[in-house]
């Protein structure tokens, strides 16, 4: 055993050790702590009270469902607006399209909160009321680069002879899109959806600013509880969100495998 360990230490494999130790302390243990806090009360006794509290409060369940709804709408809007943009970008000449892609990513360098407040000013300027519409617009505005970029990447790497083949075989433009382009760009769409859905579901400050504190999202609820020293309840809510995130990522990796297979068959 000892000998084996020495061999491991002298090989290049051992270079993972510093990071593994770091990740154990700052990634794995903290996640376990969320679970521990979620299932205990203030005195450290094992309890389910935190979850009972969540399921007995229609308000928090409503916030949860509402946040999922907002995240889905935002993701769909980003996809519908972003896909054509990615498609156009991937079709323009390489040099130009690179500059355009940089242009789409550049706004992310301005602090997200400053951008959001500027959006608020923009709404004020056109006297658009701050509320649900403003919230969704602001979220789409903040996260659409995350949708465009991965889709652009897959579309650009796509073999264009597939499209030509489909055209030669008599497919009309709609068929070409549905049967060739869309399936081939599925990996990009999936990672785009992940990159938009995950942050929108857990955002908190942006929603506060865009709705003048009128609409509460689940992230805000979690943050308020932690700030008010209700760590155990906050941890329970975080665990619920963590489960949702895990479910979404499992779902999307499943889909990715399927489309890969589908692409292979095609």
């Amino acid at each position: 055993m000892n000998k084996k360990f020495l061999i491991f230490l002298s090989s290049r494999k051992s270079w993972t050790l510093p990071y593994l130790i770091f990740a154990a302390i700052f990634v794995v243990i903290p996640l376990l702590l969320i679970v521990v806090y979620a299932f205990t009360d203030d005195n450290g006794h094992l309890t389910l009270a935190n979850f009972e509290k969540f399921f007995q409060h229609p308000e928090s369940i409503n916030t949860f469902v509402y946040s999922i709804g907002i995240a889905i709408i935002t993701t769909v809007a980003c996809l519908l607006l972003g896909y054509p943009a990615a498609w156009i970008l991937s079709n323009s000449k390489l040099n130009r399209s690179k500059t355009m892609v940089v242009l789409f990513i550049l706004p992310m360098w301005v602090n997200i909160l400053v951008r959001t407040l500027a959006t608020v000013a923009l709404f004020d300027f056109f006297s658009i009321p701050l509320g649900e519409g403003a919230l969704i617009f602001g979220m789409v505005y903040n996260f659409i680069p995350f949708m465009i970029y991965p889709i652009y990447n897959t579309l650009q790497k796509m073999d264009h002879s597939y499209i030509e083949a489909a055209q030669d075989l008599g497919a009309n433009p709609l068929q070409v899109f549905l049967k060739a382009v869309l399936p081939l760009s599925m990996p990009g769409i999936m990672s785009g959806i992940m990159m938009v859905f995950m942050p929108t579901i857990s955002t908190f400050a942006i929603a506060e600013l865009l709705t003048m504190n009128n609409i509460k999202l689940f992230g805000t609820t979690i943050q308020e509880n932690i700030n008010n020293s209700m760590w155990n309840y906050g941890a329970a809510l975080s665990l619920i969100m963590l489960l949702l995130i895990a479910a979404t990522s499992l779902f999307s990796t499943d889909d990715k495998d399927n489309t890969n297979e589908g692409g292979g068959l095609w």
Partner: protein
Amino acid sequence: MVKKIFAQTYLWILLLLLYSPIVIIIIYSFTEAKVLGNWTGFSTKLYTNLLHTGTHHSLMNALVNTITIALIAATASTLLGSIAAIGIFNLKARTRKAVGFVNSIPILNGDIITGISLFLLFVSLGISQGYVTVVLAHITFCTPYVVLSVLPRLKQMNPNIYEAALDLGATPMQALRKVIFPEIRPGMISGFMLALTLSIDDFAVTVFTIGNEGLETLSTYIYADARKGGLTPELRPLSAIIFIVVLALLIVLNRRAGKAKK
């Protein structure tokens, strides 16, 4: 032809929408009004205010904190992540998958979960939160991205070069420095840049790990400001300057990359 014009118009409208808030910030950085959206005549007073750090000491402090935290965190995560990537590359497929999963946790988790989990860690260990905890937290969520940008470089590398170096009498350390390091350097640089961007832009993780002893980064400063009901006017020129500097940097980098290709 019509199709092309239509497509281009669509792109430009999207870009216009994306940039309009930034344009608004830049325009209103040239007026003195307290509230963003009021125009009280052209003035460069906010810029001169900003340059005389005395008038806005806390904002400048926040800016300095943001930049130093980002530099420390990006450097540390680049070192940690690159070493880890070399290790991961040499692992067997199954262990590699397991380590890769651990690596992807902070990316998938979302800021708020990472922030709260680290908050609980520091609280239960009794560590008082401040500069060090923010840096540690930033290293935590930056390193996975460094690993992901260095790994593909190692996969692309021709493994025979390393063997050849050893055959020619190089010690493993020399081979590492002269063969592997130059190969992964582009990955390390892009990982470093990514880490820098993520760290500067981060809000959710910072707010949970910064404690309450008065330490501020730009994000938490703006958040506290916005909660009080309005932005410090000097933030407008500051954002405008940051935006222009980044724009200039990107243009220079792009030009260089273009030249290198030619």
